[in-house]
């Protein structure tokens, strides 16, 4: 079956995007195909289209973000939505207002789509139970970061054509990484084989029950990888010290020029950002010929336009059926 008929036949029905764990391969591919149609936008002289005209998107960010936040803002603007920026660095609770109250207040102002980033896993899910607006997860605790994983697989697909049969390594702080979790779902559903690499103290409980391989030895597995995704150490989420020092961590798990020499010459080097240069990745590697890190960022825009477009469409459809 060719892509064209697949796209035509498929009907997107989700008004929320909370995670990729319960999305089918087909749904993921549909988002990627939709993103592809938005990709050429960035090259136009007038970078705007009308599908979200008259709609209000609120960016509710309870955690720091540079890429994701700006990317969502830009994506919403390009689709002609009005964008409200809501920032509350500290937890809503400490301020005295609960997340639900904040969201209900924003909804009362007529918000159509809530893009939320929160330090608590499950916060976006909680919103879906309490408000009618579309909810898009921009990263919750160490649960999921679906748009990051979508732009990761989009980038891989762009370069390699398909993920089927690719061997992908995800290296670093798996335990505290929402990117790792969303990556695992997206990549394995699209046919890749994923290996998680890091010290056992940064692996989550029962990691062996996920559809992945696990290695504690990067040098032993790096030569198999077609793609390597280097995660940042989530220093803000670590408890105690899961490894003795940054120096020791880098020694075993950093992607150095030396280490990269053992990999396939065309390996794709990825990083979700923000990078800690010299910790998990050497500058020369981050900026080198194998790196697609900036391409990931560029693709994030198209992917987020697609997501906003699709959830809005599903909400409109739901409204019509009522």
């Amino acid at each position, binding site marked *: 079956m060719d892509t064209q008929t697949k796209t035509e036949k498929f009907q997107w029905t989700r008004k929320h995007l909370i995670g990729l764990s319960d999305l089918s391969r087909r749904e993921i591919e549909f988002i990627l195909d939709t993103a592809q149609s938005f990709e050429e936008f960035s090259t136009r002289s007038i970078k705007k289209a009308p599908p979200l005209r008259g709609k209000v998107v609120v960016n509710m960010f309870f955690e720091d973000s540079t890429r994701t936040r700006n990317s969502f803002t830009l994506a919403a603007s390009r689709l002609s939505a009005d964008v409200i920026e809501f920032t509350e660095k500290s937890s809503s609770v400490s301020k005295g207002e609960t997340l639900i109250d904040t969201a209900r207040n924003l909804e009362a102002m007529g918000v159509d789509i809530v893009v939320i980033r929160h330090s608590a896993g*499950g916060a976006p899910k909680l919103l879906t139970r309490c408000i009618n607006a579309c909810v898009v997860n921009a990263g919750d*605790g160490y*649960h999921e970061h679906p748009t990051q994983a979508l732009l990761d697989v989009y980038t891989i697909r762009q370069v390699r054509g398909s993920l089927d049969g690719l061997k992908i390594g995800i290296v670093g702080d798996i335990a505290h990484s929402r990117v790792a979790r969303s990556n695992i779902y997206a990549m394995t559903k699209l046919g890749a084989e994923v290996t998680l690499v890091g010290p056992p103290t940064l692996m989550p409980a029962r990691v062996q029950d996920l559809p992945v391989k696990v290695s504690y030895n990067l040098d032993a597995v790096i030569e198999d990888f077609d793609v390597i995704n280097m995660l940042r150490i989530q220093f803000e989420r670590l408890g105690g010290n899961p490894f003795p020092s940054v120096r020791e961590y880098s020694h075993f798990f950093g992607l150095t020029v030396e280490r990269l020499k053992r990999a396939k010459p065309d390996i794709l080097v990825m990083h979700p950002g923000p990078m800690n240069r010299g910790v998990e990745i050497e500058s020369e590697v981050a900026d080198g010929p194998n790196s697609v890190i900036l391409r990931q960022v560029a693709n994030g825009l198209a992917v987020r336009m697609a997501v906003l477009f699709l959830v809005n469409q599903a909400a409109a459809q739901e409204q019509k059926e009522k």
Partner: protein
Amino acid sequence: MAKMISETILIKNGRLIDPKNKVDRKADILLADGQVVKIGKNLTETADRLIDATDKIVAPGLIDLHVHFREPGDEEEETIASGSAAAVAGGFTSVVCMPNTAPAIDEATAVEYVHRMGRQARKTYIYVMGAITKERAGKELAEMGLMAQAGAVGFTDDGSGVQDTAVMLRAMKYASMFDCFIAQHCEDRSLARNGVMNAGYNATVLGLPGMDPLAEELMLWRDIQLVKKTGVRYHAQHISTAGSVEIIRQAKAQGLPVTCEVTPHHLLLTEEAVVNYDTYYKVNPPLRTQKDIEAIRQAVADGVIDALATDHAPHLKSEKELEFLTAPCGIAGIECALPLYRKALIDTGVCGWPQMLSMLTYKPASILNVAKGSLAVGDRADAVIIDPDAQWTVDSSKFYSKGRNCPYQGWTVKTKVLYTIVAGEIRFAAED
């Protein structure tokens, strides 16, 4: 004013189950002056009140070793009055209030206050445990002696465990002179840390910090070593893991004065319930796995579990609507506890009514060291009349408790409390 004389009550044709006295037979029972006056076949005495208990179970009033009635301090969540009304609706004629209130019950006047509010509520009998340490901070011993004199039945820092081993040892040694028991919420904070659910596959997928079962088991194991040294009576509260069951089993085999309780939710629900971040399933200790449930049920069958206790923990809806990480732990469910125990233990063939009722009557009474939990002539007239087969649907909006945080909402359950009698007075009668 003339002395009030309580009415006499004759309960006819019921199945009298009095586990302490190994009674399970059809009998009539006459209550007068707050006592059991006569038990026998075809009693013909006239009474102020006649209750036909045909096909019903008549049992000693139920005892709940573990409730949070939130007073003093959090009266919006529950009061001793609302909690007491809920307790008798659930068949409980005696409950034990935990001291993790605000402020904590850590001195004698607070103990007296709880007793007074219990008397005023005039529903269930209210017992209270005092804190082991001042403000439950785990550092300095609270005035256990004065609290014991004021009527505290035992001591616990429930809500958290006493982390410092030296403090726990000192508390046990000190308590041993008052013939009371020490209870522990077993949780090693250095391991449990910020965990909000069982550590395992589901926590990994949900991206929530997990609590390793070892956090419970290590403190339990530690405490049992301290029991060996001090000989104090020790009670493990709401044990939740297969490992804990094994530790208790071994301690009992060694003849140590160790008892334990389990909750309805640790007999019925697993960590799977949390997959939608539903905070009504957030409890501490967290819901575990089916393997743990099987181990606990087996321990019930083997007589290793001494008491069934609700850990009734009401919270505001608005608090439970917080993020899973920040929402408070606890389930409000004292009013539907009995049918839940039935579902977990009788319907699964783990045990029958007499054995189940033993963990709700004389066994918890013996932990408290009070003369309750039996229904023989001369005993205090605390009794419950149960329709074992009546079906009903749990509706938390109808609870006497202020707590609506009940994950069993909408469940159809079997077994209904018809009458709850405390000291010879009908304190609860089911409608219709």
